[in-house]
């Protein structure tokens, strides 16, 4: 059932930094340059480009065109990915479709953002009248509401969320690209002592906006082999959904779009949760990791706490999870965030994980989350399975 004609045949990732003083263009340039160096592909072979909409350059509706010009690329297929943390995996899936359709042969999926240097996004719409007045400007308040409901329906063990934070931090210590100030170990005591920002959400449950970029080379297996590329992984399944349950004013907010798409990606590959070698879930907040473990069927709904406490999530464990530290401990490079989880999956499957290398990295499940909507969980959910 799964298609094995398209490959990710290269990746690059900049270091994550806070208030770098750099622009998304500059970071993107570094990511492209590193990608070309890593793959040996000539710049002029690139005829497809997917660019992720960044918070730092959001006022420019022609950002993707400007980026093509900045990088000296002449794409015959250009995609502007504006589904936030789903834009990287979504960009790979759209590039695959474009390649199959003959719109381009060699595509780069590029995500760069620098919101800790320059925040220029304005979500507009209903927010000033209906979301900001009660004090729900930022994601923490929305996630405080979400966690409260989860606790009400299922119960939650603080130790489980703490374990995600502590384990991911330990993984980040082995990640050269992780933000330097996060390079110190975290203990459960630190987690419990972390200040509550929006009950019951603690500071150490949250990501911090940083600057960074990542890029992926997507082409057909045939073209990749013609270009002499050796390392490649197959994105064998992808699914996404936006505004899940959107017309249900009384939707259960503990059920996200992942509940709808998990069956799709497993169905396309014939894999089950037991077959997944590593999990690289989008981690803007620790609770998102827990809810995804449930909604992809690693455990039953409501059993996320016990599953986490019973499972070694490190790179040597039973379910290696966010082996590079995730966004929570490597830093969230704005809306280039989804590419951070994807880059770690590709890196591991290329056998380039270094001190944190997962043994027999035959596949990975990577996810994305895009935007926090009004009184729900998240706007877009995306999932991709990579196979060797």
């Amino acid at each position, binding site marked *: 059932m799964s298609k094995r004609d398209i490959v990710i045949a290269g990746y690059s990732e900049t270091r994550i930094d806070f208030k770098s003083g750099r622009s998304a263009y500059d970071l993107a340039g570094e990511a492209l340059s590193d990608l070309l160096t890593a793959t040996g592909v000539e710049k002029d072979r690139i005829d497809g480009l997917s660019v992720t909409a960044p918070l730092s350059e959001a006022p420019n509706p022609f950002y993707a065109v400007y980026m093509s010009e900045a990088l000296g690329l002449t794409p015959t297929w250009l995609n502007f990915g504006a589904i936030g943390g789903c834009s990287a995996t979504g960009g790979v899936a759209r590039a695959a479709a474009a390649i199959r359709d003959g719109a381009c042969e060699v595509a780069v999926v590029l995500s760069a953002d620098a919101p800790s240097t320059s925040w220029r996004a304005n979500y507009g719409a209903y927010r000033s*009248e209906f979301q900001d007045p009660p004090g729900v400007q930022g994601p923490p308040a929305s996630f405080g509401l979400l966690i409260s409901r989860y606790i009400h329906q299922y119960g939650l063990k603080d130790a489980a969320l703490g374990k995600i934070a502590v384990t991911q931090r330990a993984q980040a210590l082995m990640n050269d690209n992780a933000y330097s100030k996060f390079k110190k170990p975290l203990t459960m005591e630190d987690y419990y002592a972390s200040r509550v920002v929006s009950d019951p959400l603690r500071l150490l449950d949250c990501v911090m906006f940083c600057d960074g970029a990542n890029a992926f080379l997507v082409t057909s297996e045939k073209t990749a082999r013609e270009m002499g590329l050796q390392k490649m992984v197959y994105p064998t399944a992808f699914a996404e959904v936006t505004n899940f349950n959107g017309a249900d004013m009384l939707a259960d907010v503990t059920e996200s779009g992942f509940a709808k798409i998990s069956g799709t990606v497993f169905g396309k590959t014939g894999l089950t949760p037991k077959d997944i070698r590593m999990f690289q879930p989008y981690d803007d907040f620790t609770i998102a990791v827990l809810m995804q473990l449930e909604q992809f069927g690693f455990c039953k709904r409501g059993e996320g706490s016990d599953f986490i406490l019973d499972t070694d999530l490190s790179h040597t464990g039973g379910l290696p999870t966010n082996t590079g530290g995730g966004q929570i401990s490597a830093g969230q490079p704005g809306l280039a965030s989804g590419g951070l989880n994807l880059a770690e999956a590709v890196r591991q499957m290329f056998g380039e994980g270094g001190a944190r290398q997962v043994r027999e990295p035959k596949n990975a499940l990577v996810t994305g989350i895009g935007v926090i909507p009004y009184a729900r969980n998240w706007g877009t959910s995306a999932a991709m399975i990579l196979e060797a």
Partner: protein
Amino acid sequence: MSEAKTASAAGAKPESSKPTRPAPKPNVYVDTQPFWDGAREGKLMMQYCTETGRFQHYPRPVSVFTGKRTLEWREVSGNGTIYACTTVRIPGPGVEGRLPLPVATVELDEGVRLIANILGCAPEEMAIGKRVTLAFDHFDDGTPYPAFRLADNAR
């Protein structure tokens, strides 16, 4: 991490530092005038789909149930139950001088939810399942904005 730094700085400000909570501009993305006019009369007004008989909130350009403009504004009772709740403890625009700020997703008896503040309520008093009734908070210029009180505290 940076948030924590900002928080302690803001926390050190004297209590008298003036709150800046300007009333938002209505009608910026769809016609919301009935909501604001209703608030001035002490009513909570919401969009009602005339084809499905259901309320929706926040206001949209179409009925999310039909995709068509089968909409009118109706008053809702303002009686409901706390569906989810949190207390905002970090500073940000519009919350200065209001922290800790109790926030809830309120499920109205009409079958629709909204995010609102729970007034006159200590954070530990707020709980999912508690009944609430309509109340009004005010922006700097006196413009009323729908909020709630715990039903037990209302009288």
